[in-house]
């Protein structure tokens, strides 16, 4: 089959590799019909995530048709399914509590050593996201092996197109969980750093959860425009001082809840961020965390901090004093996708949530390296690239 493989910093290629096979009783093989490039794939593309190996197949946002099933899979050939990016067993203690991203068993035993060293306890496996999270082949390919297929994939009703449901795999549940982690109370003002897909879905989710106002922060005009379409007020941090603007816009109180949807590649020319960049390039620190610092400082006293953004390592200059003195609460974590999928699929069917607005480009799997470069170089215009293995090379459809 053809698959998008990682070979190093800014080097991804479409290679011919062996087809996946059923290896365990609960496995299924999915023929991919749509697969997206995620903002967190750019962290891999930029070489920020350790434990990548040349030839690793990327992709953790995908859906398709069931073509083969193991004896204990509950799926049937021909079903259309969206697959969660977290690989969870459904039977351990954490899965029992719906903490699917903390599954004890989704990550192979040998790979769990790295998570044990880095984080104290290993986390679940993830598709196409380094060997720290299991070394599973991802879905930017023609076919993928899905372990524990009786627990993860959700069957999609016929009437819905791929574009309408694809983002159930990661970014829609991630945006929803981000808003849920902000413990929003009716009438709250919520500030969201980053208007990428997760930030934009967090904006929509926050309103659905009763927020009176959402303030979205970014520097890409097109992304701020999308946030405004969903009713958010906006701050362009290149044109205004974010903290000062937030304080003035909230009557000197600060937002009740803050959401950091930026993560480890925070942009912007700030002194602490530049120090982080130098350190990162010298391998002294892996994470650049301007957005979470600013969110904590801006948050009102006794407020809530939600951090869907991806961080991988150890940081310094974390404003621990502000965090403690103001009595803030922080909630974070990889998304427990399986927990949110049924409810969010319902919300899509009922027309409460629209996800298709996000897609700016559709192209062939063969053109995936071009898609990565475009997404990396032009985040203003390129909000989401969806790869279609069924398209001929060179077929590219930009959004109307």
């Amino acid at each position: 089959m053809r698959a998008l493989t990682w070979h190093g910093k800014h080097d991804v290629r479409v290679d011919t590799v062996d087809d996946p096979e059923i290896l365990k009783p609960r496995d299924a093989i999915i023929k991919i019909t749509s697969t997206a490039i995620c903002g967190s794939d750019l962290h891999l593309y930029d070489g920020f995530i350790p434990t990548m190996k040349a030839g690793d197949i990327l992709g953790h946002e995908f859906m398709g048709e069931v073509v083969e099933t193991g004896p204990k899979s509950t799926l049937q050939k021909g079903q259309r399914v969206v697959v969660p990016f977290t690989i969870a067993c459904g039977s351990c203690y954490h899965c029992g509590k719906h903490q699917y991203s903390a599954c004890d068993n989704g990550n192979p035993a040998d790979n769990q050593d790295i998570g044990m060293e880095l984080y104290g306890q290993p986390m679940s496996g993830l598709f196409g996201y380094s060997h720290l999270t299991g070394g599973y082949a991802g879905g930017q390919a023609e076919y993928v092996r899905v372990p524990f297929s009786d627990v993860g994939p959700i069957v999609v009703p016929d009437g819905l197109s791929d574009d309408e449901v694809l983002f159930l795999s990661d970014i829609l549940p991630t945006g929803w969980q981000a808003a849920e982690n902000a413990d929003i109370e009716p009438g709250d003002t919520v500030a969201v750093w980053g208007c990428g897909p997760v930030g934009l879905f967090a904006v929509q989710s926050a309103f659905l959860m009763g927020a009176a106002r959402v303030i979205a922060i970014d520097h890409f005009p097109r992304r701020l425009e999308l946030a405004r379409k969903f009713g958010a007020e906006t701050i362009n941090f290149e044109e205004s001082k974010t903290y000062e603007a937030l304080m003035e816009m909230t009557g000197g109180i600060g937002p009740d809840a803050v959401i950091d949807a930026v993560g480890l590649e925070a942009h912007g020319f700030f002194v602490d961020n530049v120090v982080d960049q130098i350190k990162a390039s010298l391998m002294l620190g892996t994470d650049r965390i301007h957005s979470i610092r600013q969110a904590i400082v801006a948050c009102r006293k006794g407020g809530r901090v939600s951090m869907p953004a991806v961080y991988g390592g150890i940081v310094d200059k974390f404003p621990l004093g502000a965090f403690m003195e103001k009595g803030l609460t922080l909630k974070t974590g990889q998304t427990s996708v399986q927990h949110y999928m049924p409810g969010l699929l319902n919300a899509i069917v009922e027309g409460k949530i629209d996800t298709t607005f996000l897609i700016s480009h559709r192209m062939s799997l063969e053109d995936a390296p071009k898609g990565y470069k475009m997404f990396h170089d032009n985040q203003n215009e390129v909000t989401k690239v969806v790869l279609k293995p069924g398209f001929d090379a060179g077929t590219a459809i930009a959004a109307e």
Partner: protein
Amino acid sequence: MATAKEDAPPTTSKVREVRDAKTRTVQDAQGSSLIGRTVTINRPRAELYAYWRDFARLPTFMDNVQQVDVLSPKLSHWVVKAPGGRTVEWDARITEEKDGELIAWASTEDADVPNSGRIEFRDAGDRGTIVTATIVYDPPAGLVGKVIAKMLQREPAIQARRDLRRFKQLMETGEVATSSRTRAQLEEEKA
């Protein structure tokens, strides 16, 4: 026994004498290196005990154990992968067992790698069963052998940790998780 003024398990002690005292509690201890490793498994105690007690099934989750032949109710023969593509073999004898609670074993005198230990099963309420492995062994060729084994990922402490995780996976999910994509990769992973 060294005085314990805390509740931390002796296997985690920084004090040599505390560890040695624990080593002596393992019946017929074969060696001086001590490993303790605990995992909680979301299944009933009796079920876990029964699976483990059938030694012939241990290679399903112990990756470095090639084969175990049960010779008699108390005696078994082990073939284990060693660094450099070799295997080592020994006979092991059950030194103590309590149905549903514990199994202790020790290798017989002529073992290539003298080893001994116990596996204990305790109820953990709605979390299932706490399984603790305590292993006492002599690394092959002393300290140098231990370092080489560690480099080749055949070091007993690493193996014990991974074996317990695979046992948990098998008992909780019915299979041992793999990220291989093809049968060929899966075979290579097991080699």
